[in-house]
């Protein structure tokens, strides 16, 4: 073989692996388009300003929780407490924020500190994050029940106004989703310290050898996760205008699923903020989509409500299968 041939062979290898990455990166977006197309096929009126507003309203808290989960996943850890934490934040927000805003802010600040402390324990004592965050999930759930033994409370005015604001042309949830995805992309994917933060997930020893503190990086990522968890809880109250201690328990698994659909991996620091937000939207739409599907042989021609969770699972499996197929086809 001539040198030329060797070189072009190399170039092809390189091109194929970056094409594979491109395809994998496009997968969340493609799934979103498919779900939207399916909804449009059964009910064209759903794809409208008000339709999207209704269907995606609850997707914003899920997207924020997914971003929080993704921050933790970027350091090769997992946060099993995010659902309980969002519930705790929602209870604090609905109970204290309207009348005693200072107390509420202090309590939420305490939440950030606990997250940072968890990172310290996980890193220094080498405790699996699953254990620490599982324990914390009971801590948050307990606090939430103490604060709000029965469902109720009220959304602070500014949150209610924010979540029900109707900008011209583009529905608010879509606008917020773009804003969240863009901001986090800037912080984690484009900033210079973001590269270090993601490097910790990729090869912590290499980052350490270059003179960076792994502890600081992990604490920063957990702090960032708690901030997005707080935003998730607050927007959730803004949408539902009251709180309940168990209102977000499902968010833990939804956030993991959303991040994974969006292209994140459990180890190796591979994350995608834009993908994660899209993943959360896909999961949310997938359950709404079932309401529109016409299935002639079922009673009433509709898929029963109880199947919605199953539908989310199906989407997850389909998308992950597609991802594996892409990786295999290119090898």
């Amino acid at each position, binding site marked *: 073989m001539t040198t030329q041939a060797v070189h072009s062979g190399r170039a092809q290898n390189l091109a194929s692996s970056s094409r594979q*990455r491109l395809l994998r990166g496009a997968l969340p977006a493609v799934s979103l388009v498919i779900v939207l197309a399916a909804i449009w096929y059964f009910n064209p009126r759903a794809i409208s300003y008000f339709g999207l507003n209704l269907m995606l309203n609850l997707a914003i808290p899920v997207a924020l929780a997914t971003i929080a989960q993704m921050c933790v996943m970027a350091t090769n850890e997992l946060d099993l407490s995010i659902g309980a934490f969002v519930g705790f934040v929602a209870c604090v927000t609905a109970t204290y924020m309207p009348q005693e805003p200072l107390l509420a802010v202090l309590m939420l600040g305490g939440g950030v500190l606990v997250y940072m402390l968890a990172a310290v324990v996980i890193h220094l004592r080498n405790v699996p994050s699953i254990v620490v965050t599982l324990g914390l999930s009971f801590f948050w759930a307990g606090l939430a029940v103490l604060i709000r033994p029965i469902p109720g409370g009220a959304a602070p005015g500014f949150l209610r106004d924010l979540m029900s604001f109707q900008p011209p042309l583009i529905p608010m949830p879509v606008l917020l989703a773009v804003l969240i995805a863009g901001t986090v992309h800037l912080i984690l994917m484009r900033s210079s310290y973001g590269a270090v933060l993601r490097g910790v997930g990729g090869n912590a020893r*290499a980052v350490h*050898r270059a*003179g960076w503190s792994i502890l600081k990086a992990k604490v920063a990522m957990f702090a960032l996760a708690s901030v997005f968890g707080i935003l998730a809880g607050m927007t959730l109250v803004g949408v539902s205008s009251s709180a309940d201690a168990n209102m977000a328990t499902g968010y833990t698994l939804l956030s993991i699923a959303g991040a994974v659909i969006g292209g994140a991996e459990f180890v190796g*620091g591979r994350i995608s903020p834009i993908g994660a937000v899209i993943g959360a939207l896909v999961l949310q739409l997938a359950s709404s989509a079932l309401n529109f599907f016409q299935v002639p042989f079922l009673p009433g021609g509709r898929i029963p409500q109880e199947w919605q969770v199953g539908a989310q699972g199906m989407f997850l499996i389909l998308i992950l299968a597609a991802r594996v197929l892409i990786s295999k086809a290119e090898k």
Partner: protein
Amino acid sequence: MTAPTGTAIELSGVSRSFGAVRALSDVNLLIAEGQCLGLVGHNGAGKSTLMHVLAGTLRPDQGRIAVGGEQHDRISVHLAQKLGLRCVFQELSLCPNLTVAENTRILHPSIKGLGWRQKAGKLISAMLDRIFPGHDIASDTVVSDLSIGRRQMVEIARAFTVSEGVLRLVILDEPTSSLDATTARQLLEFVREEVRTGVSCILISHMLGEILDYSDQISVMKNGQLVAFGPVAQFTRERLVDLMSGGEHPDRAARERSIRSLADAPVAVRAQEGGQGLPFVARKGEVIGLAGLSGHGQTEFLVRVFEAARARRADVTVAGDVSFVAGDRQADGIFPLWSIANNVAVGSLPALRNGLLLSGSKERELSSRWGRIMGIKAPSLDDEILSLSGGNQQKALFARALSTSSAVVLMDDPMRGVDIGTKLEVYDIIAEQAAGGRTFLWYTTEFEELEYCDRVYVFQNGRIVGELQGQDITEAGVIGSSFKDKDAA
């Protein structure tokens, strides 16, 4: 005492121990400004430890390090960066999930703010162009998309990039191991060019030709000590091999074992490499040593033999069962939550059955018998395995392998970190067992252990490159076979 001008780094009396093992003992080393120091030595000679001390990833127990005339008790990772000490480690230190430019930025805290990507990309591309002209690595490629060789190129180039401060010393640990001949030469030529600008370089390699051709000074390490140091002209290939092996052992003749005539014994293991490399034969009752530099395919060979005993393979045939003694106790040896007795008996479960269930009495009988034979020192065999010292844990692993009925015992450098007393006891048991007809395949990184072997195969790059027998099993013989240059091999 002030360092003479022109000294980049001076180590004085640096020592470092790991448990009972002295990895570095009283090392004095002077690295001159603008020179390339070739560092050679066999496995465990202390090269890596020395390197980690300079990189700040290991704290020396004693000694002082002077960098540019300034004394330091220890160097932290942060200080090493500040002083301009860079290391290219053998195991790669890039983040696979980041691009080439992002990996470069991680080494340079000063590259930040708007346009940091372009700055880092330009920096690394310029250096790659200088060292490896004609390379095809784009700075926005994600590292996991690059081949191992290209990752090595990126890491080497990154070590030479400067954004602020000075670059004083670059340590290259086996830098050419995953480069092809052309890029390896480009790198070594670049090193010569770079030292002319005043940067110092430590080149660690087992390609003695590279060391002799591209260094100004050479130092040879053995057992954590510097055994020779001088300008390159004082050394030849033969002298380096001699120095690394430290001459012959005086007690060798006394220990010379009767060369047992096993040539007629039935073959226990036979392996044939595809085309290259020598064939491997082990006969019943033989103790076969697998030697060579660590990580050159010995463990993989043992695993292949192990698999061949369960599922037929074309290239390896094994007569009878095999058992395996792991060297990395924690990773693939002990069950840390089990008792000593359970850990011993788990290798022989089929023989301990009573109907469908395990027989507790048979299990106790087996483990106490072998605990006695191996001399495991424990108040009770029902104690947790982790209550034992490292040496006794290893004895339990030997007991697990030897208590089976297997005809072939594979040993993957089993004496790592084991005290000498235990070693001598185990050597005797191995000799006894071999006399009883068992075959041992023994991968070891310690020369002394090869002397307990009937024959030795030397591995290089996954192939068998030498076979030594009886009198010929010497340190020099093994080193001579394992330090062959790429083109010579």
